[in-house]
């Protein structure tokens, strides 16, 4: 039988099917083995508490790593944490990891960083594996050809105790991306995925795992593929998936946890031969995307499907909704929240803040590309701009090649690693009414701060907007 890449990974991880147990005909969920489990401070405390209350234990602490990322401050790490509640949560994570023997990359570790940045960076993320984490952006790791998905806290506890999870097999959704971007610096992976969400909507991927392929995907670096898979969840997909290739295998060499030497070569041989969809494998649905004429994308509303080209105007609600009354209501509400009028050219929208960071766009390449725009220029006096590297390793690498100097000379704040203003659990937040060009993944109401207004863009678009003080078409700059 012809199988998809997802079918193959799934089949390799089924421990038992619920219909074998309950003797019914419905497919039902299967008990799936989890090869890699990532933890952070926000969604794990109640899980550990549950384990303690029931006198249970962690089954495979060797397959689990943790880091502190969501509410760590990104200013000087030698200063004490002022927010007592955040501090308690970080201390709780340390205590729990110690008690249950789990490796923790805490706030002082040279490997600390956003959980979805450090997993790949450490070689913990490997092709063909199943990866779970109490965070929806776990889909990021799908860029390696892993089935990686976000779970809730009860499921975190379940994985800690059993190393498994009950899950009904999602459907397969193929997105084939072809074409040649006019400029690889200005038309980025972020623009590709925003454009996809614009086309399929925020619920377009519900109940499915999206496999991305096509010549455009093959040409993307691993870091760029992570940006695409990361935002699969913004289309509602359970996970994103890209078959591993030489780019993937080369990325894995020499990383802390990835297999070494002969063992790695054997695995690469296996991955190369097995981790791809069969030529006639059936998908539940599929679409084609062409990037030949793709322009930089900018969101105007309060969900990631509210996207237009930088050269366009903010749409009218009926134009956006295309006859769907509920979507039209959402769009009216969004315009009011964002305080922008339909018909406004995107390039006339003035901004107050710029955030370059998050598990979507905080890796070395993102910073290198943004620096190309910034070099020799100054941030607009009306804008406060910050760069938050995804991890301590990214920060170190960036500093080695002088990116910190470029950003700082331009007037950017150069910060310590963490989730930061993507969700504003730490002190990095927007003030009421502030408008931000952000490289993160969610423009929801209040996401970056109460009554803050978020426009999602690529790192180069964010950088150019910081300089200009309003959105600009970065193609005119690079």
């Amino acid at each position: 039988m012809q199988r998809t890449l997802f079918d193959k990974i799934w089949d390799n991880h089924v421990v038992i099917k619920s219909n074998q147990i309950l003797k019914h005909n419905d497919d039902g969920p299967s008990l799936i083995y989890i090869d890699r489990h990532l933890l952070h401070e926000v969604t794990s405390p109640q899980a550990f508490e549950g384990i303690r209350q029931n006198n249970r234990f962690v089954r495979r602490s060797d397959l689990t790593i943790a880091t502190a990322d969501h509410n760590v401050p990104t200013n000087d790490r030698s200063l004490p944490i002022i927010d007592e509640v955040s501090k308690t949560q970080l201390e709780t994570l340390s205590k729990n990891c110690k008690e249950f023997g789990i490796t923790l990359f805490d706030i002082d570790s040279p490997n600390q960083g956003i959980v979805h940045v450090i997993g790949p960076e450490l070689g913990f993320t490997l092709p063909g594996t199943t990866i779970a984490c109490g965070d929806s952006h776990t889909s990021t790791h799908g860029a390696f050809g892993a089935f990686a998905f976000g779970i809730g806290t009860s499921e975190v506890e379940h994985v800690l105790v059993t190393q498994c999870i009950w899950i009904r097999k999602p459907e397969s959704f193929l997105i084939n991306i072809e074409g040649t971007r006019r400029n690889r610096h200005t038309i980025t992976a972020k623009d590709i995925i925003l454009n996809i969400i614009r086309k399929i909507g925020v619920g377009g991927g519900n109940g499915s795992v999206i496999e991305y392929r096509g010549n455009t995907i093959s040409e993307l670096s691993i870091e760029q593929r992570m940006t695409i898979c990361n935002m699969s969840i913004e289309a509602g997909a359970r996970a994103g998936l890209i078959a591993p290739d030489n780019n993937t295998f080369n990325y894995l060499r020499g990383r802390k946890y990835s297999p070494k030497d002969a063992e790695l070569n054997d695995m690469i041989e296996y991955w190369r031969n097995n981790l791809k969809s069969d030529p006639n494998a059936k998908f539940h649905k599929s679409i084609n995307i062409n990037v030949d004429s793709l322009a930089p994308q900018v969101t105007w509303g309060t969900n990631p499907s509210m996207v237009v080209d930088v050269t366009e105007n903010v749409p009218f609600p009926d134009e956006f909704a295309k006859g769907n009354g509920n979507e039209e209501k959402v769009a009216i509400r969004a315009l009011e929240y964002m305080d922008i009028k339909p018909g406004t050219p995107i390039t006339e929208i003035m901004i107050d803040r710029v955030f370059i960071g998050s598990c979507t766009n905080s890796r070395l390449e993102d910073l290198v590309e943004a620096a190309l725009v910034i070099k020799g220029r100054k941030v607009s006096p009306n804008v406060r701009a910050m760069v938050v590297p995804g991890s301590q390793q990214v920060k170190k690498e960036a500093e080695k090649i002088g990116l910190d100097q470029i950003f700082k000379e331009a007037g950017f704040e150069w910060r310590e690693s963490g989730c930061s203003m993507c969700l504003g659990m730490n002190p990095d937040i927007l003030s009421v009414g502030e408008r931000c060009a952000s490289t993160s993944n969610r423009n929801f109401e209040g996401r970056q701060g109460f009554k803050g207004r978020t426009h999602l863009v690529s790192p180069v678009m964010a950088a150019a907007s910081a300089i200009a003080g309003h959105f600009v078409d970065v193609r005119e700059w690079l």
Partner: protein
Amino acid sequence: MSENGYEKFLDMKAFKKVRSQLIPLDIANVDTDQIIPKQFLKLVQKSGYGNYLFYDWRFNPDGSLKNVFVLNNPKYAGREVLLVRENFGCGSSREHAVWALFDYGFKVILGPSFADIFYNNCFKTGVLPIILRRNDIEHLFNNSENFVEIDLMEQRVNVNERSIRFQIDPMRKKMLLEGLDEIGFTLQFGVHIARYEKQKGKGII
């Protein structure tokens, strides 16, 4: 019940028939950031989130109620069934969203579609999310003052003269009806898990 409220969920009560009027939340794509804003994710317990449910939609910055928001309409007080639009619960995986809905008093959520992670999370706390066809949801939005009866055993939503059958995984149904602890259930299959691990050996795949 312990201080941090954990046992409330562990000894999840068996799901009984629910009979209630509806609270209609007529907004599509409601994300979990709205259901429970991030500042309330710093707590390390599972209970007490009801006060923070839809915080920015319910309260003004000075803590006073926003009268325009549906949950603040006194006529809806005490209702146990939330009626929603497409893709409810999208975005962040935070289970705190379900803890807040449960703590506020919701036992059932009726909608045309739910985001996957949110849908899964509901069952862990004993909140029943039910997917109905669009025209049934429309009918309910037009009749939110009527009492609906939710019968999980029979998989039916009864309202007026309509009796609408809904789908649910048999396993999830069993868990809810019997109030089972899922981890305890899975641990019964420890032998299968150990066998899988042994077959896999040192290899990753």
